[in-house]
């Protein structure tokens, strides 16, 4: 059974703020789901290649050249930004000088 501490760790990794009630609920729910998927342990997978991708395609690169964005698309992208200063996306400081914790 997942503990509240473990849920807090997951929430931190997932960058999600949860209420105390939510932490309890998720601990219970996730434990149930993990128990269900745990049945995969019944199978012997020694020497089996993992499948990351079902089509078997490999490679697929293109030349790394800059393609200018047209003005209209650029405008659309910028107008979607929640907080900006002109054409710059505004974000809170990454380094604050204080201890970095949630």
């Amino acid at each position, binding site marked *: 059974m997942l503990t509240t501490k473990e849920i807090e760790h997951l929430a931190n990794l997932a960058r999600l703020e949860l209420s105390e009630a939510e932490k309890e609920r998720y601990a219970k729910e996730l434990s149930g789901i993990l128990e*269900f*998927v745990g049945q995969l342990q019944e199978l012997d997978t020694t020497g089996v290649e993992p499948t*990351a991708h079902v*089509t078997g395609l490999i490679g697929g690169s293109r030349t790394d050249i800059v393609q200018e964005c047209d003005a209209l698309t650029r405008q*659309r992208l910028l107008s979607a930004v929640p907080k900006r200063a002109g054409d710059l996306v505004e974000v*809170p*400081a990454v380094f604050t000088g204080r201890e970095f914790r949630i």
Partner: protein
Amino acid sequence: MLTMSPNELTIIAAHDGLTAKRFSCRELVDSCLSAIEKKDGELGAFLSVFADHARADALRVDEKLEEREHIGLLEGIPIAVKDVILTQDQPATAASKILHGYEGAYDATVITKLRHAGAIILGKTNCDEFAMGASTENSAYKITKNPWDPERVPGGSSGGSAAAVASHECIAALGSDTGGSIRQPAGFCGVVGLKPTYGAVSRSGLIAMASSFDQIGSFGKTVEDVEIFFHAIRGKDPKDATTVDSQLPITHYQLSKLRIGIPKEYFAQGVDPEVATAVRSAIKKYEDLGVKIEEISLPLSKYALAVYYVLMPSEVSANLARFDGIRYGASVSNPEVRNSEAKLLPRSFASAPSLASAPSLMDVYTKTRGHYFGAEVRRRIMLGVYTLSSGYYDAYYKKAQQVRTLLRHDFARVFKQVNALLAPISPTLPFRFAEKTEDPLQMYLADVFTVSANVVGIPALAVPCPRNDRELPIGFQLMGRPFEEELLFSLGKAYERQISLS
């Protein structure tokens, strides 16, 4: 057919009607918009409707018809689009609060193709938030009702698109299928639905859920309509490196030379007897057609759901990391939803979280995501973060990837013996609202028959069984070898012809 209103027609019949000038494109579009106006307040299939754009598009088609110009099969045909697919300058919410007010910056590749074919987009349909769910109850905006019974769900996650087609609000619709999200609502609403082979249709412009499972597909009133739609949207796309040039030469299949496998594990305990009966009648119809029926075994079937619920949340946790309140979408940095006309009807839309002071960067992430993502979305993100985390990666993620390989081998083996598989879509009839919302695992079990096709990447076609007005819809699915959609269409059409005779 003369007594049918244009919105009740199929693609083929509507196309005939337009070219024979029985009605104009404007009349066709208006009959759909009128159906939406009359029914959608109750039904809730649409999140946004583009009446003006649709009418302007209709005008262009009518001008072409006026000039006696040839029009393609999809030209002038009104369609609906699941709200996880981007259409330029129009809302794309993924049925989530985190994208309330967001408008697509570009058209998805499938949309570009459909516009090129002349299809007319009526609006965006409701779905489970970020396509996570099997009932459309997880939408942050509203529920969609099953057109056959308003107390029951339309299925999910593409419930809106399925309901819109079933209720003739549109002629056909786009959906997406990651674990059954086209087929299960198709079955629940009594329409045809296709999940193409992974790689057959471009995912560029589809809001990503699980990148190795997602496929865009379509709903239609007949197999032929779904076939037409599929031909219009498939193809290799330089913007999606996972696409494959999949056009196989047209083959005329002789039914008596085909073999359909019935996977015995799909008829075990837990399947509603009414579902089993309906699906067995479908099998009988194929026998009557001279197709060879064989019972086969897919012994690893029971593990497919576990594989899906490890790998899919893992991919979800990566794909949804982009919703961080920085570049687009809702954000605690700016709680005002700045947008032109968002024609959405929010349920009780929670206000922005109160902040004691200006948010730190971490606050922007955790509070935006914590507040604007729904419960199921947060659940799956955390599950995925767990299964990918150090110490658990091997036991969960890598293990699931290995079992995925074993499942692929299982299907490959079976496809050496038979051409296609026939199975139920859902173990139950369409269920009632709130019936499966208490325990998330209950809802996950709804996917038990659909996930295998996504796990191994094969095409699957949902076909409705004949039902009367007092019964609830039941469908069956045909699963085929990679890129053999044409075979599935042949089998589906043969079944439709057979049941129209009885």
